[in-house]
């Protein structure tokens, strides 16, 4: 069976050319970039060239790019690094309720260490309100961390406005751009971004590599201690093959950006319009316009997301859901709940995330099989149709053990 991959927000296949370069730097050009012999110098050169390419993707300068092991490390370094380095200035951080756990759990950690965190709410489209942000600032606020684009519903935040406001108030602005970087145009200077997290495996570079952009002059301290790598900010032997991969993927992303955004958006819009008109009892999650080119997120009422995913998987289609059953916790997606969805509706969500390797045929096949699956699951559902009146005798009380 042909397999179709519609889960690019979870991870992407490594671009063939990128993979070839990574392979070369694992085998022939395997030196440690800190070594002074020719093997080392060859690696060092590659690292610095990659730094330039990554910087170019987001409009930064190379010495503002620091390589990390991925998005989670980048978020931890940005937030903890700024928090501890600026502790004397203040202990208040503003973020949003729909951040990735890499941000939210880092903030939880900081709360235990004396910081105060404000979690901005979002509207029904998953968008923060600038008014809320402005009202939340105190004279102790040292950092605003708002994601560029949401990983579940794709909503793109008003980053430029946040950046301008943060600059005006002299507060650092970090954005988790793990979903956006490489997939959507970003200009850190135009948007006044002070720190920006990116992760390679979300845009056709390998897993285990990422970068943190830190505007020159931002006061930050390291969180991983050891050697003097990355100008003393991030200890650990440089992952040269990963860095080379990230650099090349950044270069490709920059060159292909417009093409890809246009092509992928078209596929996205086709899915959204067909599903909306052909399948009853559905709700589009996320912003109707301001969303990632590849993101589709629907709730299908009366059914549960995991069983939908498994049915799609049996048809060869890989997708994801905000259902509790797939989130690793007992609650459905905190993002969907923050947008005001009920638990029931959140459980029935389906995320399709498209990549540039997807085709119109794949989309058509999906649109063909989806309605049958949904019909079948709804037919099986006690919440759907005439029998939906009955009330459960024993509302599972075990469920909310956390």
């Amino acid at each position, binding site marked *: 069976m042909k397999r179709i991959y519609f889960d690019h927000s979870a991870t992407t296949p490594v671009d063939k050319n990128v993979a070839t370069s990574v392979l070369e730097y694992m085998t022939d050009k395997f030196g440690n970039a800190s070594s002074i012999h020719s093997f080392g110098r060859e690696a060092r050169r590659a690292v610095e060239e990659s730094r330039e390419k990554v910087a170019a993707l987001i409009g930064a300068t190379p010495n503002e790019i620091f390589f990390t092991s991925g998005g989670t490390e980048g978020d931890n370094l940005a937030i903890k690094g700024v928090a501890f380095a600026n502790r004397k200035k203040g202990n208040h951080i503003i973020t949003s309720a729909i951040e990735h756990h890499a941000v939210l759990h880092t903030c939880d950690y900081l709360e235990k260490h004396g910081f105060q965190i404000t979690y901005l709410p979002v509207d029904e489209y998953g968008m923060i309100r600038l008014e809320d942000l402005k009202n939340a600032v105190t004279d102790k606020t040292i950092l605003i961390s708002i994601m560029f684009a949401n990983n579940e519903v794709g909503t793109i935040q008003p980053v430029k406005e946040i950046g301008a406001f943060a600059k005006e108030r002299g507060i650092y602005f970090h954005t988790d751009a793990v979903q956006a970087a490489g997939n959507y145009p970003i200009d850190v200077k135009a948007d006044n971004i002070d720190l920006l997290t990116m992760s390679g495996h979300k845009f056709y570079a390998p897993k285990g590599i990422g970068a943190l952009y830190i505007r020159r002059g931002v006061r930050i301290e390291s969180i991983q201690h050891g050697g003097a790598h990355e100008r003393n900010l991030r200890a650990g032997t440089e992952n040269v093959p990963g860095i080379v991969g990230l650099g090349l993927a950044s270069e490709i992303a920059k060159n292909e950006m417009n093409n890809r955004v246009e092509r992928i958006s078209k596929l996205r819009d086709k899915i959204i319009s067909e599903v909306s008109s052909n399948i009853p009892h559905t709700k589009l999650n996320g912003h109707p316009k301001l969303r990632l080119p590849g993101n589709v997120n629907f709730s299908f009422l009366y059914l549960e*997301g995991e*069983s939908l995913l498994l049915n799609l998987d049996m048809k060869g289609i890989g997708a994801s859901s905000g259902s509790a*059953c797939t989130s690793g916790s007992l609650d459905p997606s905190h993002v969907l709940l923050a947008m005001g969805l009920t638990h029931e509706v959140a459980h029935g969500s389906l995320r399709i995330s498209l990549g540039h390797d997807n085709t119109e045929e794949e989309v058509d096949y999906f649109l063909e099989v989806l309605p049958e699956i949904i019909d079948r699951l709804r*037919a099986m*559902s006690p*919440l759907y149709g005439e029998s939906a009146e*009955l009330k459960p*005798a024993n509302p*599972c009380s075990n469920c*909310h053990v956390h």
Partner: protein
Amino acid sequence: MYTEKVMDHFSNPRNVGDIKDADGVGEVGNAKCGDIMRIYLKVDNNDVITDVKFKTFGCGAAIATSSMVTEMVKGKKLDEALEISNQAVAEALGGLPPAKMHCSNLAADALHEAIKDYITKKGK
């Protein structure tokens, strides 16, 4: 993550549907948790379960356990059916992932509710 047997019951669930003139109906779970299971029973005069159907809103494990429990009870006497536990259902499926043992493994509870309903209705 799921055993072959779970995937078999999930993809070809046995006894899906409802019974219009059921002798007993039981439902557990709630939509907030993401799992609701409802079991319909037909019971003859000798307290033998002659027909059973289910409707389930929930994950793969919820659907598979529902399907499994209907297979396990068909033709059984009520007192035997009451002895089937959630654990037994999971075992009959070759096991469930740990995360699924709690909320999604309630099919036996739904069965027991259906039997209770039958008994109540019968006025015993």
